[in-house]
């Protein structure tokens, strides 16, 4: 197991190198003097020169890159030119919001997806099975931003069950979390159903039944436990995707998440913010995937020996 974890950690090195290189090269590719881009076009010449010195824009590229990484590791992503605030403070504030939203979403998605998947598999081709698979198809086909608007229209405007705007309380997060989690619920439901159907056909399930175990014990104790292994991977992956995909939900519901911070950064040419957001979201996603793989290996010993 330790060897697997070490191997998996080693694979992280080139990816993190690439991720830092990509966000570093943002300032190099965007037309214009990097020092002016970071300082802002209306900054005075002394300040621009100070930025140039501090970031080493007068140095060769590899020195600039190393400085960029050294600063990033220390949590220094520069100053936002719009907010006049350290980027790291903005990022942490906004990112913790996105993580909360994604966490609630994955909980909702897991609950709906697992129940729908297990019931569908145990009653294959029943009305429930067909209905939940049609629901899953709708879930993966619906644009998140449209679903968000519809939820807002029905549950905030007409039924008045939830507030239409604002943030900071759980009730502000329910509708956005449903919108963000719908597609994941669909994916989890499909995956659980397929995995359950495969497990139910295995010999050990037939043996369990032949031994006279009650059907509920067979399904929930023996089948579900084994069927869950591939589904765990989906949880991790979907949670990771939410961190990036939350940007649409955040925009629809006007929520202060990291995705919206990044999009605003693009519009306002606040490059320090964009760089920081790219780096933070990608690194977190990579780490979430690492943890998912390790969890998968813990549950399924076969993986470790491949």
């Amino acid at each position, binding site marked *: 197991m330790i060897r697997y974890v070490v191997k998996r950690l080693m*694979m992280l090195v*080139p*990816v993190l190198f*690439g*991720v830092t290189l*990509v966000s570093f*090269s*943002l300032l190099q*590719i*965007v037309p214009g003097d990097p020092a002016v881009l970071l300082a802002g076009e209306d900054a005075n010449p002394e300040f621009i020169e100070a930025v140039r010195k501090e970031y080493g824009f007068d140095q060769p590229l590899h020195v600039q890159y190393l400085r960029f990484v050294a600063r990033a590791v220390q949590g220094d992503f520069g100053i936002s030119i719009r907010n006049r605030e350290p980027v790291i403070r903005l990022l942490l504030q906004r990112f913790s919001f996105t993580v909360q939203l994604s966490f609630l979403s994955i909980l909702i998605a897991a609950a709906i997806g697992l129940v729908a998947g297990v019931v569908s598999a145990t009653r294959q081709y029943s009305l429930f099975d067909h209905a939940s698979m049609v629901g899953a*198809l*709708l879930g*993966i*086909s*619906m*644009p*998140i*931003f*449209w679903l968000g*608007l*519809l939820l*807002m*229209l029905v549950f905030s*405007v007409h039924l008045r069950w939830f507030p239409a705007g604002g943030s900071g309380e759980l009730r502000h997060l329910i509708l956005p979390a449903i919108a963000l989690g719908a597609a994941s619920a669909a994916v989890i439901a499909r995956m659980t159903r*397929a995995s359950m*159907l*495969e497990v139910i056909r295995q010999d050990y399930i037939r043996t369990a039944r032949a031994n006279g175990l009650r059907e509920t014990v067979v399904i929930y104790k023996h089948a579900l436990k084994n069927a869950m292994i591939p589904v765990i991977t989906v949880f991790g992956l979907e949670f*990771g*995707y939410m*961190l*990036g*995909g939350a*940007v*649409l939900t955040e*925009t*629809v519901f006007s929520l202060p998440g990291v*995705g919206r911070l*990044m*999009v605003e*950064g*693009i*519009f306002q040419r606040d490059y320090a913010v*964009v760089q920081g957001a*790219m780096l933070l*979201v*990608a*690194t977190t*996603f*990579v780490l979430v995937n690492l943890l998912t793989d390790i969890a998968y290996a813990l549950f399924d010993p076969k993986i470790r020996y491949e």
Partner: protein
Amino acid sequence: MSEPLPRTSQAAEVWRRLRRNRAALVGGAVVAVFVFTAIFAPAIAPFAPDRGDLGRRLEPPSAEHWLGTDELGRDIFSRILYGARVSLQIQLVAVLIALAAGCLLGLVGGYYGGWADHGIMRAMDILLAFPGIFLAISIIAVLGPGLLNLMLAAGIYSIPQFARIVRGSILSLKEKEFVEAARAAGEGDASILFRHLLPNAMAPIIIQTTLRMATVLLTASGLSFLGLGVQPPHPEWGAMLSNARPYLITAPHVATFPGLAIMLVVMGFNLFGDGLRDSLDPRLKD
């Protein structure tokens, strides 16, 4: 002696299986209507997509304006028809970019292995480190907003999926006897790659292309909704939805129909892609 089995071509067999799959047929029909609309929008649309009548803003659906009018008094039905054009164009360009680059990278990586494969796959890992639409947004951050950059972003965003699938197929195909035979007959690498390996890897590529059309539409309309893609006044469904947001309460129909259009087309491609998967490769069916 029994009669020899009738010989059927692979295409005929796939078509036979596809025809019996009702979901795939529905998906295929939706896709066909979408493509037809995109091509003939100017002939079908009752109004010009950008002709507004400020005296008739935000009108609900009526006999004259089937889906009502938007915030500038433009006919929503006509704009949705023209929007199909914009969407199909984006989807085709983006998927072609991904298909060409992804297939090439997958072929080279899978066939040659070693450092080439290692390098290509690590590069794909780096792209995949940016989750979903966030990758497309990051590319737009570098390139800047706009239609052309949107196509490029949606294209690059889909490269890893094609590269991985093609590489996987090539890895298992290159050990087969027909490849060895071709090599023994003195055929070069290029000939083996494009005349023998690629044609045999077509099934997963076709399936992925169809499913990717759905993902690209969702991503591209999402980017336009954020203001990073197609800019108003062009009739793009995501951008139309974004413009409709301030009128959600007073005129909900303005936001309803573009979203419905996106969902229908995405669903069509998904159903058709799933159907193709079942027909082209019955082993994959659950």
